[in-house]
């Protein structure tokens, strides 16, 4: 059963803060943006959250390919900043995109890879022909405590993918997941900010899981990095995806179009999916894209994707990732603190 991406849409808030502005406040020096390879990050407006970002991305995905929202049979929204602990984000998205009421919905949470887990769930329902279209979303207004290293990268944004069997802009050829119990990053119930294991988030977490999922998929499919035109890896900072790509045998040229973290920061559940969208924005029919997400806790989902002719028809139907990146308004730390609700009134 061939299934894949019918359309996609992204949303990135227009506000930005430069990493050097954050380091100025905490006295961490000017070289922090160089060491992280993140130079600015997106900041949500005062009235934006994971739901509003998910809705804007979902609307863009429907508009891009002029899809009737009543064909959607499942909405799975992945985020680690769902505004409600109990009341699904997908219910609000469904009403806002004018879907029918005949759809199933659930919220997903798996740190930064909840969006790719949502894609896998949609692929199952689409592949079994239980639904015609599934809407998988990864969206976050990620949290980082003031003064914590996370504050330099925790950003806001999201992407939505319409998964189906017909009129494919890109076929998802296969996927492979790798999951273990690795406590590298977590947020306890009721706590406003996550905690993390510092350097422990690197080798035993990000690199082990991304490498294992990527190698597992290539072994299963009998492919090598040379079989792919582009590659996208989860982007917690600008260093990790570059290093893991090199370790796996992918070149800088392959990852360059999807490497958006230096300009917008880590959008958590949106990160890998915005990187894939930026790659689809420029990919040609016949190109193959290798994608691997990472979620702390920890797990990785790897996908092999083949771009189809229809990408040319839908590409210009909605704003591109570069359109959103180019529409930036900069904040100082005081305004950033106000936007993020760090000031108590």
């Amino acid at each position: 059963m061939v299934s894949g991406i019918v359309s996609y849409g992204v949303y990135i808030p227009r506000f930005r803060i430069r990493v050097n502005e954050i380091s100025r406040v905490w006295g961490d020096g000017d070289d922090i943006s160089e060491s992280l390879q993140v130079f600015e990050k997106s900041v949500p407006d005062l009235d934006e959250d994971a739901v509003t970002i998910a809705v804007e991305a979902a609307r863009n995905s429907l508009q891009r390919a002029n899809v009737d929202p009543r064909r959607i049979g499942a909405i799975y929204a992945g985020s680690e900043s769902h505004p409600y602990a109990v009341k699904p984000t997908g219910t609000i998205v469904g009403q806002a995109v004018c879907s029918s009421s005949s759809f199933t919905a659930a919220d997903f949470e798996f740190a930064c890879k909840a969006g790719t887990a949502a894609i896998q769930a949609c692929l199952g329902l689409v592949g079994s022909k239980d639904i015609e279209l599934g809407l998988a979303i990864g969206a976050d207004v990620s949290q980082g405590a003031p003064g914590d290293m996370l504050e330099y990268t925790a950003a806001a944004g999201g992407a939505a993918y319409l998964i189906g069997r017909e009129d494919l802009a890109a076929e998802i050829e296969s996927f492979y997941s790798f999951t273990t119990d690795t406590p590298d990053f977590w947020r306890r119930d009721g706590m406003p900010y996550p905690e993390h294991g510092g350097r422990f988030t690197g080798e035993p977490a990000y690199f082990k899981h991304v490498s294992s999922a990527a190698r597992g998929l290539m072994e299963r499919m009998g492919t090598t990095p040379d079989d792919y035109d582009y590659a996208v890896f989860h982007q917690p900072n600008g260093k990790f995806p570059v290093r893991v790509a090199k370790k796996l045998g992918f070149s800088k040229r392959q990852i360059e179009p999807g490497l958006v973290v230096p300009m917008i920061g880590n959008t958590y559940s949106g990160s890998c999916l915005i990187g894939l969208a930026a790659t689809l924005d420029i990919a040609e029919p016949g190109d193959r894209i290798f994608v691997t997400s990472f979620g702390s806790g920890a797990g990785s989902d790897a996908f092999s994707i083949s771009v189809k002719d229809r990408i040319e028809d839908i590409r210009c139907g909605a704003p591109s990732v570069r359109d959103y990146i180019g529409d930036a308004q900069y904040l100082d730390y005081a305004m950033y603190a106000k936007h993020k609700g760090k000031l108590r009134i």
Partner: protein
Amino acid sequence: MTTQAPRFWRSIPQRYNLKGTHCTRCNEYFFPPRNLCPNCRRGAHLEEYTFKGTGTIVTHTTIYNATEFFERLTPYVLAIIQLDEGPRVTGQIVSSPEGVKIGMRVRPVFRILGKEGDRGIIYYGTKFAPQREQE
């Protein structure tokens, strides 16, 4: 706590997607929706209509002293917007006050309209943003 959830729930179609009505007999559009066309009365042919949400700012003001649930947003811009189909609506413009002008074209955006404190429901709905250059 007292919740306004039922009242909010009833207006979700209007708030999320600007659903109003249209009289196909006299071609007048209504927002919020009307069950009776004041022009055609018994002869009216009313249908549900989803407004595009694009329009033009007729007038605007900046709020510096807001009520409790909006004080974090100050200063913010409220405007009367003439939708392209005709009706005028009051809405917030998501832009700095200096970026808003009478006659400016706007588009709809999905935002938080309000919250019932930290424990109650979150009201979502439509605000307006300056239209992008290519639109």
